[in-house]
């Protein structure tokens, strides 16, 4: 019953009128961010981090607000997938496969409500799973020494690289770019500057928020300039929204199975929500067989990826909170948020700052209920917001990014860096080099090097120390398998193509 006591502690933190208001505001904002094409959970949360930081909210309030935005954006992503056939971010791609055909059959309202319920089920079950699993993993994490942590970081880069790209070399290069950037600045153990080229602005290192906002938000503006904002008009009609009880009942087992699959995928460090929605959709497709009609707009095809995607988002919080290793791009951004708030994730977080962990979990539960209540009756309002034209939206996003980053340090140098990262992000994405490993590298590079150096101090320079415990060996094997296996599985795990008109 320790869990219930912890949970009541969490609710006592998260249920004050002020934090509750923040949660509602965050959910609303998050759904809008997720729904707008070109803004997804990662760049939405990234833009808002510096703003919440300068607004002077305390750690718990900021955390409640941002997790509400995070879950909201996960919910909102389905709106543009279903109505515009544009996935807000990668995990939402699978929702377009059946959501858009369903909307074209005149059942847009049904698809939206059904996917909202599926999102709720997935996210709710994942939060329960998080409550059960995270404290256990936190206890295991106490056994982790520097050698294990080094192997764990490696595992995160390998699995993320293996999943995120079709080309291992490109994924590994992306990780190296991130790690290389993380090395810039004053070395923590010797106190001497490294790789700064004598530039004083670089002595503090490159702030990961600058890189995240540049790579995600500014790069997006360049993509919209390239496409001239085409393809963002609603092609399907949305009539009266009713609750499709029949579909919800018919898909209840699908939702449960998809939530389970998604949660497992989310826990794997580096795998994340894209894998969760993919596996959930594919497993339901094979269970339904040829007669299931997946891809033609069936209810199960909408429910499965949404439940899987939201459940993976919750599952990804398990390694992020207990080990400090994020499971996806969005959790990487959340890790950035925690680091900005001076909260270090890891096993000690559960014992030293239980109010943060359980406050976060309670606010996830609250956000989830708020989102369900908000998304079913108010879905028409969010659809209206989709009509904001790209030529207003994207300049607005750019200006908000500039103000956010400028408010961090008040230096033009960070803004220039941000524009540079935007250009880099455009080129990388054009060449199909994933950008999430870059972020992960910048976030984790310092920790990874520290782990290696502490391990070598402990062993007095003996490299075999890195493989000295069963946990470390297991992580190394998983890392190598996670990097190599996708090369052979690529034929089997082929992603279905998006539906075209």
């Amino acid at each position, binding site marked *: 019953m320790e869990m219930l006591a912890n949970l009541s502690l969490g609710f006592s933190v998260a249920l004050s009128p002020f934090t509750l208001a923040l949660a509602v505001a965050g959910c609303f904002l998050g759904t809008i961010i997720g729904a707008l094409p070109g803004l997804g959970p990662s760049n939405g949360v990234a833009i808002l981090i510096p703003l919440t930081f300068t607004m002077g909210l305390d750690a718990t309030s900021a955390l409640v607000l941002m997790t509400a935005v995070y879950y909201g954006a996960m919910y909102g992503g389905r709106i543009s997938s279903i109505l515009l056939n544009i996935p807000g971010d990668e995990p939402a791609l699978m929702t377009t496969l059946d959501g858009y055909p369903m909307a074209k059959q005149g059942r847009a309202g049904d698809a939206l409500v059904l996917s909202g319920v599926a999102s709720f089920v997935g996210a709710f079950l994942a939060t329960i799973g998080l409550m059960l699993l995270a404290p256990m993993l936190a206890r295991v994490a106490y056994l982790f020494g520097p050698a294990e942590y080094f192997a764990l970081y490696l595992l995160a880069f390998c699995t993320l690289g293996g999943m995120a790209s079709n080309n291992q070399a490109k994924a590994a290069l992306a990780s*190296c770019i991130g790690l290389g950037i993380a090395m810039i600045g004053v070395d923590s153990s010797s106190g001497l500057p490294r*790789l700064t080229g004598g530039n004083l602005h670089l002595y503090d290192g490159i702030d990961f928020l600058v890189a995240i906002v540049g790579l995600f938000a*500014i790069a997006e503006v360049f993509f919209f300039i390239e496409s001239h904002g085409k393809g963002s008009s609603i092609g399907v009609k949305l009539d009266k929204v009713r609750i499709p009880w029949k579909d919800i009942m018919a898909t209840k087992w699908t939702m449960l199975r998809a939530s389970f699959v998604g949660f497992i995928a989310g826990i794997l460090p580096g795998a994340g929500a894209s894998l969760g929605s993919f596996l959930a959709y594919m497993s339901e497709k094979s269970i339904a067989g040829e007669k299931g009609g997946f891809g033609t707009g069936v209810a199960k095809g909408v429910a499965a990826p949404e439940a899987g995607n939201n459940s993976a988002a919750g599952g990804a919080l398990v390694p992020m909170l207990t080990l400090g290793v994020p499971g996806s791009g969005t959790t990487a951004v959340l890790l950035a948020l925690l680091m900005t708030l001076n909260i270090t994730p890891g096993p000690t977080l559960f014992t030293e700052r239980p109010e943060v962990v359980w406050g976060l979990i309670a606010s996830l539960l609250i956000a989830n209920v708020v989102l369900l209540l908000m998304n079913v009756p108010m879905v028409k309002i969010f659809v209206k917001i989709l009509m904001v034209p790209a030529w207003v939206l994207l300049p607005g996003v*750019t200006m908000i990014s500039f103000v956010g980053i400028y408010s961090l340090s008040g230096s033009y140098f960070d803004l220039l860096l941000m524009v540079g990262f935007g250009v880099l992000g455009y080129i990388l994405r054009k060449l199909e080099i994933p950008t999430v490993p870059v972020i992960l590298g910048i976030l984790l590079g310092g920790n990874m090097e520290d782990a290696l150096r502490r391990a070598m101090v402990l062993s007095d320079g003996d490299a075999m120390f890195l493989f000295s415990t069963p946990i470390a060996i297991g992580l190394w094997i998983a890392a190598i398998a996670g990097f190599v296996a996708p090369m052979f599985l690529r034929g089997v795990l082929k992603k279905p193509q998006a539906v075209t008109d």
Partner: protein
Amino acid sequence: MASDRIFGLVTLFVALGYIASATQIQTSFLTDPVGPKAFPMLIGAVAALCSLVMIVKPDPDPDWPMLRTWGALAIAVIVLIIYAYALKPLGFVIPTVFAAGILSYQISPRMVPAALSGAGLSIGLFLLFKYALGLSLVGFPKGWF
């Protein structure tokens, strides 16, 4: 094919340069067995290896934009750079009108809506940041009000 090769070549040189500058890192007398040089050099080596793989085994070319779109992108980058320098001396409102307006024009080339969205975003965001969110944002050049 060519794009991957060119990018691979560029990153190869960057990686080699990175390794070269990592060898120049000062070490203090209080050093651990690994020291501050080894990890950056390792990263550089892995990056160089990946670049070589990209040069030897390139993927098919992406659809690069047309020359005119490159022009639009270049203008956007230049505008953003000028905006970054202008934000401090000129305040938020005036540079934002121009930057947002020009970006808007690059996305959808119509004069009047672009100008309106520039002005609207500038004033709207200023009011939002200054009064709703309470950020200490400087709106205008010093001495105007």
